[in-house]
């Protein structure tokens, strides 16, 4: 067996304090942990169960824990308000350094944006889209609340070091085709469990040409094919993004998979002629070329989420809309993913543009994506969304249909009132 390692094996070897390979079970040290208003309360409850017999019930490291509210902000029910109270109290008592109340935005945008994620780190979050941090070359992975309880107490967690599937994506993206289209294509190709228990590694020209915003979209959705992480080897763009937030950061040239690293599978793609992609109800892997669903009437467009709620995404959408109004009889909800992204959107005049077009622009939060808050779809309604999941009932009624697409496709469709190829408007 060659001594060459995947990026994932390197990260786990450091975190476990010994050389490890795919398939090994390890107790690994956590570099950063994130929990939010939905999964946090159960984690806090579990933490106190673990600490039951301890005199000092202190978290492992208050500087390495991030707690924020994003799923139900502002509190949309009495239960949500109670959960917020519980977490505010916990954050205060435990002196959690990075606690963000309802003003800051969606966890997976805030974490990289505030500099809480560094390349090569092992980051856990009690949210399945924690794999988004792979865009920075970090092994970010989603865990449950009891797992998070153990992390809060110990700063360590068990893992099976995963094998890696490498996706080599080459070619040049066509006009108005984006990274969202790439990731939908990959998911449609391997299926909802095609990367189950595995780390996804995205490589190739087309991936490294992407800006950080678009990389986050690709990494974010690794979980939709069952992936444990969605890594992109750090390059100059990564280093620049990270340095801007952590001036002392020194890039590590070894943060990449070795030449002869062992992959469970290598899949190659040329996306040069790929049209925009759409995921149809009720599974994220039910992906088609846009031509197959063009003309489908829609009731609501959601532009936002941790997948596609960055300023760059909103800018793309606004450009496609080009001052036109949304079609009569439909509604459009725009939600910038964070306070920072909101301010950029505002200063660029895009909030005004969206509002003049007939959309509503909400404060940063998860919004309709997880169907727990506002913007729900009623029975028989059709939603088009730039978010990451279209499961039955995900955005409201189980009798509603949800299609997933890029911000460009969402914008073109909003203008026409039906699913529309953004290259045609």
């Amino acid at each position: 067996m060659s001594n060459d390692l995947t990026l994932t094996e390197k990260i786990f070897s450091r975190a476990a304090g010994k050389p490890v390979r795919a398939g090994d079970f390890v107790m690994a040290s956590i570099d950063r942990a994130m929990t939010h208003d939905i999964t946090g309360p159960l984690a806090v409850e579990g933490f106190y169960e673990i600490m039951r017999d301890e005199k000092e019930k202190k978290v492992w490291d208050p500087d390495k824990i991030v707690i924020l509210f994003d799923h139900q902000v502002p509190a949309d029910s009495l239960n949500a308000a109670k959960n917020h109270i519980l977490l505010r109290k916990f954050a205060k008592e435990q002196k959690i350094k990075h606690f963000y109340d309802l003003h800051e935005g969606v966890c997976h945008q805030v974490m990289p944006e505030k500099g809480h994620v560094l390349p090569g780190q092992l980051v856990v979050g009690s949210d399945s889209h924690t794999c988004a941090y792979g865009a920075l070359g970090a092994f970010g992975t989603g865990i449950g609340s009891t797992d998070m309880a153990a992390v809060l107490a110990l700063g360590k967690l068990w893992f099976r070091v995963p094998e890696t599937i490498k996706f080599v994506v080459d070619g040049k993206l066509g006009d108005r085709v984006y990274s969202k289209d790439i990731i939908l294509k990959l998911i449609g190709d391997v299926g909802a469990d095609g990367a189950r228990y595995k780390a996804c590694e995205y490589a190739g020209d087309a991936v490294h040409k992407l800006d950080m915003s678009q990389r986050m979209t690709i990494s974010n959705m690794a979980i939709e094919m069952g992936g444990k992480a969605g890594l992109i080897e750090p390059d100059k763009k990564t280093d620049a993004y990270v340095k801007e937030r952590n001036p002392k950061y020194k890039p590590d040239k070894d943060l990449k998979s070795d030449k002869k690293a062992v992959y469970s599978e290598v899949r190659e793609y040329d996306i040069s002629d790929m049209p925009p992609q759409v995921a149809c109800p009720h599974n994220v892997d039910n992906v088609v070329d846009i031509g197959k669903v063009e003309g489908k009437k829609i009731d609501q467009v959601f532009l936002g989420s941790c997948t596609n709620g960055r300023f760059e995404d909103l800018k793309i959408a606004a450009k496609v809309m080009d001052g036109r109004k949304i079609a009569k009889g439909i509604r459009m909800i725009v939600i910038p993913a964070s306070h920072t992204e909101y301010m950029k959107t505002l200063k660029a005049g895009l909030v005004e543009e969206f509002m003049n077009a007939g959309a509503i622009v909400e404060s940063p939060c998860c919004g309709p994506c997880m169907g727990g808050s506002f913007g729900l779809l009623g029975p028989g309604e059709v939603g088009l969304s730039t978010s990451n999941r279209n499961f039955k009932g995900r955005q409201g009624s189980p009798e509603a249909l949800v299609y997933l697409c890029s911000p460009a496709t969402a914008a073109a469709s909003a203008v026409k009132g039906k699913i529309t190829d953004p290259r045609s408007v």
Partner: protein
Amino acid sequence: MPAKSRSSKKLVVENRKELSRAWKFGDDIDTDAIIPGRFLTINDPKELAKHAFEGVRPDFKPSEGDVVVAGENFGCGSSREHAPLALKGAGIKCVIAKSFARIFFRNSINIGLPMLECKDIDRIADGDILEVEEGLIRNMTKNETYHTTPLPEFLEEIVDSGGLIEYARALIAKEHKAKKNK
């Protein structure tokens, strides 16, 4: 106290001779189907149980000790621990599937809801009566026996200490003792 409901003494199926009705599901059953997002402000398993599979399978009304049987990738999607908690609260004693999504699998182990991997589930129909014991499933309706895949050894260690809460508690006590003796 919810403490009791979230930890397991042993991750083997209890009440060996108990007969269980199989509630059969297909592939890629996601956690939104198991418990929709609008109920995630609820943390009590019994309350969550009232909404398990609401929307996708309104007839899901299991009796204590019943089992869920499913295809590939059961529990895909969100990391919500509310999903296995809802099943546990509904009296489901274990889930038998061809394969499980990773986070759901971890969550279930951690809260003491047994996950049994079995390749023969296509032979089990909705409503079949099963007898589930360690490593074996007897289908009383069809008079057949199926084998389940054992857990990896490392996980047995967590299971044997009574679940992740207990495992972590013991680890902390050990660390404190070591610090004191220094």
